[in-house]
């Protein structure tokens, strides 16, 4: 099997969700998608390993799910939006996950985000034409 390469593959710390990921992690993403339904969430929580087996989620994919290793899942081809369906109701917000990806605390992650807004009002005033409070 020969997969074509893309220039987005060298963006650091980034796993662009494309055909290659989607193909390889199809059972995993199908499992994650199933969490849209309450009864599936309950079934998963009762026996996560059996639930993986039901969806054909095997090997490293199963290991990542059982360990809630979100970076591992992502690298293996989980889609971030689908993964959020597993993470958020189980206490890992998207910002918690972002912090985990970087190996920092959520507070540190949030502080880095907040710093992006430093001097925003002044920058907008300089550019002009923006509503500015």
């Amino acid at each position, binding site marked *: 099997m020969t997969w074509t390469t893309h220039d*987005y593959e060298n963006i*650091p710390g980034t796993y662009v969700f494309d055909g290659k990921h989607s193909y390889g992690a199809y059972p995993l993403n199908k499992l994650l998608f199933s969490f*849209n*339904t309450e009864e599936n969430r309950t079934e998963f929580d009762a026996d996560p390993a059996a639930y993986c087996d039901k969806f054909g989620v095997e090997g490293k994919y199963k290991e990542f799910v059982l360990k809630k290793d979100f*970076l591992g899942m992502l690298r293996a081809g989980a*889609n971030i939006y689908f993964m959020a369906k597993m993470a958020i109701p189980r206490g890992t917000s998207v910002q918690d996950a*972002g912090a985990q990806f970087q190996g920092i605390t959520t507070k540190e992650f949030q502080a880095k985000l907040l710093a992006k807004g430093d001097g925003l009002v002044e*920058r907008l005033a300089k550019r002009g034409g923006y509503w500015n409070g």
Partner: protein
Amino acid sequence: MAKIIGGVTSSHIPAVGNAIANNLTQEPYWKRFFDGYEPAKAWLQEKKPDVVIVVYNDHGLNFFLDKMPTFALGCADTYHNDDEGWALKPVAPFKGDAAFSWHIAESLVEQKFDICTCQEMKVDHGFVNPIRALYGTHDVWPVTTIPLAVNTVQHPVPTAARCLELGRALRTAVESYPADLNVVIFGTGGLSHQLQGERAGLIDVEFDLECMERIANDPEWMTQFSNSEIMRRAGTEGIETIMWLVMRGALQSNVKVVHKHYHAPISNTGAGVLVLENYL
């Protein structure tokens, strides 16, 4: 005849819906973000469009990866919101206009946009949150809506140039509809953000502001970028900004910029509100 009176952009992140649902919009973290919507809300109140076409992407509520249309148009009289996995109470159903949708689909296909038509289409936060932010939350929504979904989730996703062209075809489609309807286009999502990987938390304020200004006055500028280039600058989820170009393409080449609001960060995102009005 139907006419497009303008376009509005909005972020559609889940946190916006949560902030509205939990009455947090006047909390210090959210106040500036939501206050910047007020002029856009006032404009919609004044113009009272009959129909809003909402350009958004589904995040795994209606579409799974088994079938992933690049462009999909709702062609129903009702659209339901549903549980996206975090057990939030769905909002009230949205009223559509099937006959108008089918006209748009016919016109788009005639113009070589071979769009996927959907007679059952669940609408997720990408569709719901801009409407809530711009109209408030209602048991009976005050406007008829038509969902136009763009795949920004699974690559290949359409280019910025293609999205702008789709907008132009959408304008032809709307303006050839015989009913006297005033239509507004919402371009949703963006601006820069990346949720995934070690680069999560990326926001590029300069790029966002440049995008806002260019999309208002020089949308062709965006079409120079490949999707790889947009993701490199604006993050993998920042690719959603291409949907603003569908809105922009549906407007006249010169538009009146009624309102321009930017805030960052909100959740993990740079967020922009544009209100652009056609000269009639």
